[in-house]
């Protein structure tokens, strides 16, 4: 694990993308297949589950460090990350301890839950005593969860491509879908082209749009662009190959069984066909609010009632494979034409349909269409260059999301909690409330939106104005008002406030505004009614 721990330290220390890719490429080029497979797994953000609970580790840390529980907790609250706290409070002496490769460490970690408690505890304590700082820290990261080392999947792909002198998009495609950290998978991943044909249910890597940050007319001639609605659903690929159907989410999880009506309808698609689109709760040619779709996401085998209450449809906007041939390099207009042909045969046009394009010869028409977005139940427009290929990952320039301006509200900060990663000893996770009569009711949690200087200033304010502490959470004096933006709002029985907001984030710290002037719950409830 020495090499992997050194890689982790190097990734953690460097801020330049180029250095990170070079460090990973050097590691992958030299690592044994069994170790490289696990390294990739962890770098991709995956974790070993249920190895040792946080409470157990904290108790053991008390034993290992000789400090009482309260001082361990105080240290943890200051550092904000349990793995790092353990690393800082323990001292390992690696003299004479033989190197154990990463895959063997994984096996040792997975064995932990099967051991008698005393044996398990002793083993963890011994590891802390015999591993040097770098290795001990990585071990603690694996014990407590994911590495959180902050490398984008795209960079990992790039590094593997560099190490094995293969095209990056081939690596990306082999990684799409399910991937097991075994030496065999690693061999397939890094092999030459020939072994690709046995992956009949695997999706293509998704092409992601960037947010449009300039005025749309700056993109040039309007007619070079194709506009369509930006749906607020689940991005997915629908795969029809052989006699089977597979549904993959953008998170590259299989969704099979959750949306039986789509799978059934997909059987009518021609074989060797892959569609990219959005799963939406859908009725009478219109999307239903997102929270209805949410009810379906968690249901593995939905019953008759949820099928009628929240019917779904697959709204296709791209075609990646047709007649069993990869069509991603074709221009978008051509892929759209093939999509039309593929859908001609679909049995149920209420369940699988093409996403309509918005005809426009000038930007004025599109600007006006975007204003209508919320009434259409969509988030805005997508702008796609008509001659663009279907690429991999998020590449600026060809696909843009052009969202409508968000809803906003003014809310009062009532709770704060320390963040993770680089914000781990700052209070950066906030809970906001609005007035219901004379009481404040929590309505949103938000993390992002303040700059580092504001975060630091608010952190100091929180520490100086804490009312109570509940574990890692502090309640603060209800004095600070923030303007929050959010994408949608709906009534909810699961929230105390009776409303649920989507994607809340901080727009501004309203230091000019007294808490009494924050929004009322009533206002939010009527917003929810209006957008239902």
């Amino acid at each position, binding site marked *: 694990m020495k090499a992997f721990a050194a890689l982790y330290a190097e990734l953690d220390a460097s801020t330049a993308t180029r250095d990170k890719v070079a460090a990973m490429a050097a590691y992958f080029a030299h690592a044994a297949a069994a170790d490289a497979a696990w390294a990739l797994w962890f770098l991709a953000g995956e974790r070993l589950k249920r190895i040792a609970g946080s409470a157990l580790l904290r108790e053991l840390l008390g034993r290992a460090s000789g400090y009482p529980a309260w001082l361990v907790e105080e240290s943890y609250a200051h550092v*904000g990350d349990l793995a790092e706290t353990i690393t*800082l409070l323990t001292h390992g002496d690696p003299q004479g301890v033989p190197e154990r490769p990463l895959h063997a460490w994984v096996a040792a970690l997975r064995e932990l839950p099967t051991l008698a408690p005393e044996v398990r505890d002793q083993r963890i304590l011994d590891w802390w005593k015999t591993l040097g700082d770098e290795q001990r820290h990585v071990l603690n990261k694996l014990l407590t969860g994911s590495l959180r080392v902050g490398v984008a999947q795209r960079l990992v792909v790039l590094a593997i491509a560099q190490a094995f002198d293969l095209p990056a998009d081939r690596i990306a495609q082999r990684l799409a879908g399910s991937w097991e950290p075994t030496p065999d998978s690693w061999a397939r991943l890094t092999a030459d082209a020939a072994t690709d044909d046995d992956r009949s249910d695997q999706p293509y890597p998704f092409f992601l749009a960037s947010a449009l940050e300039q005025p749309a007319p700056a993109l040039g001639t309007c007619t070079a662009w194709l506009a369509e609605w930006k749906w607020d659903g689940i991005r997915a690929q629908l795969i029809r190959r052989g006699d089977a159907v597979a549904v993959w989410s953008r998170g590259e999880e299989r969704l099979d069984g959750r949306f039986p009506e789509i799978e059934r309808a997909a059987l009518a698609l021609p074989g060797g066909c892959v569609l990219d689109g959005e799963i939406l709760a859908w009725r009478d040619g219109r999307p239903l609010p997102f929270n209805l779709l949410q009810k379906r996401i968690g249901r593995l085998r939905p019953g008759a009632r949820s099928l009628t209450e929240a019917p779904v449809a697959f709204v296709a906007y791209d075609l990646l494979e047709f007649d069993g041939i990869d069509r991603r390099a074709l221009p978008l207009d051509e892929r759209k034409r093939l999509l039309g042909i593929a859908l001609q045969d679909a049995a149920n046009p209420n369940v699988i349909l093409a996403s309509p394009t918005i005809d426009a010869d000038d930007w004025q028409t599109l600007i006006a269409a975007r204003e209508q977005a919320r009434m259409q139940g969509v988030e805005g427009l997508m702008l796609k260059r008509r001659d663009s290929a279907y690429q991999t990952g998020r590449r600026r320039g060809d696909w843009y999301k052009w969202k409508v301006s968000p809803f906003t509200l003014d809310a009062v900060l009532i709770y704060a909690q320390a963040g993770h990663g*680089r914000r781990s000893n700052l209070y950066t996770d906030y809970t906001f409330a609005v007035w219901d009569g004379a009481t404040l009711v929590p309505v949103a949690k938000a993390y992002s939106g303040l700059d580092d200087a504001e975060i630091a200033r608010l952190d100091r304010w929180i520490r100086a104005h804490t009312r109570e502490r509940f574990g890692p959470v502090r309640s603060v004096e209800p004095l600070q008002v923030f303007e929050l933006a959010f994408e949608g709002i709906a009534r909810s029985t699961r929230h105390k406030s009776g409303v649920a907001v989507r994607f809340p984030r901080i727009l501004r710290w309203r230091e000019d505004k007294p808490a009494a002037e924050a929004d009322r719950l009533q206002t939010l409830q009527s917003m929810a009614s209006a957008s239902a």
Partner: protein
Amino acid sequence: MPEPALIELRPEGLYCAAGDFHIDPWRPVPRAVITHGHSDHARSGSAHYFGTRSGLGLLHARLGANASIDALDYGAQIALGATRVSLHPAGHILGSAQVRVEHAGQVWVVTGDYKRDPDPTCAPFELLPCDTLITEATFALPVYTWPGAEQVTREVIAWWDLCAARRVPAVLFCYALGKAQRLLAELALRVDRPAYLHGAMVELVQRYRDAGVAMLHTEAVSESAKGRDFAGALILAPPSAEGTPWMRRFRDASTAFASGWMRVRGNRRRRGHDRGFVLSDHADWPALVATARECGARRILATHGNTDAYVAWLREQGIDAAPLRTPFGSEESAPA
């Protein structure tokens, strides 16, 4: 009956009534004993000062050339009112002192800022037996333990070499008084190449040279020719220079920060520097605990820092301790 406090907290600072003097007062007073030259400890405006002979140059730099200062040798006792007062090495920066006050058979010691790790720029910390210890507690959590300065210096040199190999400037942010000179002195023990200084450091480095501290040869950035290429050069700058137009001349620079706060990753990452070097001029947790135990004091009063955890821990160890609320910031008090 509890003994009366020899040193107490007054609105203007720590005050010794029996000797009628203040220690590091934050408002002007008639007589001020100063522990060291950092700006939150040495404030101008008082009528008369007492400080160490080795720190005299720095005190004049801070308090003005005309400030009235009595310079004392380490260990030399003087009579102030009914008390006997002496200054002893604190190991924090050049000329830094602990204040020992003796009165009616009682000894109180105010540590000021201190560290127990070796430092080539100043006299080593002296352990003073006492009845009551008023101590700093800037890094009073067990996660703060310092690696040896030698190891950290090797890390700095490795980073500098890497920058040289990549042909980019290496900008190392650190406090202008104390840390900068300590780094230059530690580096001088291992390499012989020049380093460049931000203007805020030039005079302070010169004061250390005047005091006979051996450091790397230095040159002011401002005296370099316009358009000079700093590729591969080490530049020391105070944290306040970060993000200023002054930084523009160091294109593609790799940046680093040297401070005790760099021990915790969250602080390291938040600053967004390429490297964080764990180097502090304050006592780490083991040193704070050891000093409390070894000085034999019956009572420990802790100022600035994580006093709560430190006080609670000492009490669990059977040592009487309490926090003493002072507005000392210290140059390292805020992790932001």
